[in-house]
């Protein structure tokens, strides 16, 4: 009996996956399973950098004494002549990279997001963006989910400070596989680009077959039938939490859609406007300050084009602190409960 019940449950699960997850995205079929695979987003970066380096010899990597934990070591090991160890000197990291780009290289610079782009903002602005050089900045260990290291190491302002610089592309991948693709795609553009990475293992949402394009948002979840009552616009590892919320609310009869915005800039305005037109009420979700990040970008777009009620989920003008990633995500209201509360607020 029990095995029949679990088989039925499995069939229901597959059926709901098929109905609510657009099939053309070829997402991980195990998303809603408790044993979904997990991997750190930064690992996807390391693999993407190595892969990109194999196909394009103009690619060089520079690191500020964090080669192992940013996964730059994969590249450094295979291409020692194209790797520069800069030491704990993030301003130099950015400006040396700009000089290398001026000679035709495509430099990837890596550190923790708190230090790069946290400490070297002006060098990034002037030597990479104002100079229009294709420097690629990978900021690892972003967000409060760095955990025990505490507030000094939790970059929750990085997307805001990068998004505001002209010419900068800002990408915040939702899992390790998307991070790998984002890194490889970033290597092909002539633009300065910031790629935001997280430290902790997070669930794998996409597959190698899932399409990825810089500047394109993707609809990951839609109601079983009819239009959504609330649309969740989300970026980074919290895409997983948003999907969990959507599935749980669907069971309660609340119709939700979920849009993964992995490129914060240039923002997929067309995609966001059409998503907002269908849902009419929105919740934005990001592991970042509410000020200046994804929510702000979405609001800027919609206020001009299609004013829509929005509730923002994110950190509200405070610093982080030590704790486990789960404790912190929950404390700052970015967990499933926090997102669900925001959905209820925007509905009422």
């Amino acid at each position, binding site marked *: 009996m029990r095995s029949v019940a679990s088989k039925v449950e499995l069939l229901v699960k597959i059926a709901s996956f098929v109905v609510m997850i657009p099939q053309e995205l070829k997402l991980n079929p195990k998303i809603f399973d408790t044993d979904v695979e997990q991997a750190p987003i930064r690992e996807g970066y390391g693999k993407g950098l190595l892969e990109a380096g194999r196909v394009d010899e103009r690619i060089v990597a520079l690191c500020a004494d964090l080669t192992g934990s940013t996964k730059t070591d994969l590249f450094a090991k295979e291409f020692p002549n194209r790797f*520069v160890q800069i030491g704990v000197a993030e301003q130099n990291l*950015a400006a*040396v990279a*700009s*000089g290398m780009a*001026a*000679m035709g290289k495509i430099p990837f610079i890596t550190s923790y997001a708190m230090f790069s782009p946290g400490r070297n903002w002006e060098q990034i602005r*002037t*030597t990479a963006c104002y*100079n229009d050089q294709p420097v690629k900045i990978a900021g690892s260990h972003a967000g409060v989910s760095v955990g025990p290291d505490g507030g000094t190491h939790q970059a929750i302002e990085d997307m805001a400070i990068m998004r505001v610089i002209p010419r900068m592309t800002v990408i915040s991948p939702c899992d390790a596989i998307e991070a790998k693709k984002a890194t490889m795609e970033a290597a092909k553009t002539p633009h300065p680009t910031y790629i935001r990475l997280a430290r902790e293992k997070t669930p794998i949402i996409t597959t190698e077959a899932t399409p990825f394009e810089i500047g394109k948002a993707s609809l990951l979840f839609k109601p079983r039938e009819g239009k959504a009552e609330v649309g969740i616009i989300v970026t980074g590892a919290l895409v997983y939490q948003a999907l969990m919320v959507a599935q749980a609310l669907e069971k309660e009869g609340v119709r939700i859609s979920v849009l993964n915005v992995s490129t914060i800039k240039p923002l997929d305005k067309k995609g966001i406007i059409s998503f907002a037109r269908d849902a009419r009420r929105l919740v934005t979700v990001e592991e970042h300050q509410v000020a200046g990040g994804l929510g702000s970008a979405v609001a800027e777009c919609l206020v001009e084009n299609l004013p829509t009620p929005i509730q923002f989920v994110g950190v509200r003008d405070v610093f982080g602190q030590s704790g486990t990633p789960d404790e912190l995500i929950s404390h700052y209201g970015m967990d499933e409960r926090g997102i669900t509360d925001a959905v209820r607020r925007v509905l009422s």
Partner: protein
Amino acid sequence: MLDEEKKKKLVHVSNEIRKSIIEMLLEAGSGHTAGPLGMADVFTALYFHILKHNPKNPEWEDRDRVILSNGHICPVLYATMAHAGYFPVKELMTLRKFSSRLQGHPHREWLPGIETSSGPLGSGLSQALGMALADRIDHGTSSSKFFYCLVSDGEMDAGNIWEAGMLAGKEGVHNLIAIMDRNNIQIDGYTEDVMPLEPLKAKWEAWNWHVLEIDGHNFEEIVDAVEQAQAVFNRPTMILANTIPGKGVPAFERKYEWHGKPPNTEEAKIALDALRSLEGRIISENS
């Protein structure tokens, strides 16, 4: 080595460049005076004797690179480039004006021949070093290019310069040649009052640089130092060029008040008169 005729020519050119600096700053109504006048001889030596470059083809791949880190002294860079044939001398009168290619601080995209945009101090040496490192990846130690970075002494306050100094020493980049404008002034006063820099030579030596100290108004010393730097095969070179801020206009010389302001009409007249009277005379402090 410089023969007498060449030396005479350089003295003449640098004087013309100084006049242009005064004229363009007067027309602009803002900008920096002391630094550009003080570095006119170094820029003249670079663009009229040392550099491998082609003013008619600024994008020439094999050119030497000049990276101006202290972008605020750009009037001397613009004036030198114009006199060298990069663009018409009369365009100097557009300095700092709306839509001018001669931006208040240099912008690489606006004017061909400018390698990097600069102004915020401290990051030029890093960019020059990055260029040299990239060049080494492509050409090893057999590169035929040199990377000349002009830095200021006030810029030594910035941590970014120290970071670049350490990395360049570690990497032993032989074709990176930095020339520091050691004029002892910055905006707020004398460098040793604002933030003591001495012993300057020892700092760079400690970072594994080959360090030379010269009179930055003596063409023979400038050229000899650069030739020596070019011969060093395992380390970057720092040339500490002792200069006089405001050089050529006695009324402006050695006064930090002239760091960041342009002359008015009357002051410009005094300056141009002084420069005209200098015509044909050797201007080195040591001669």
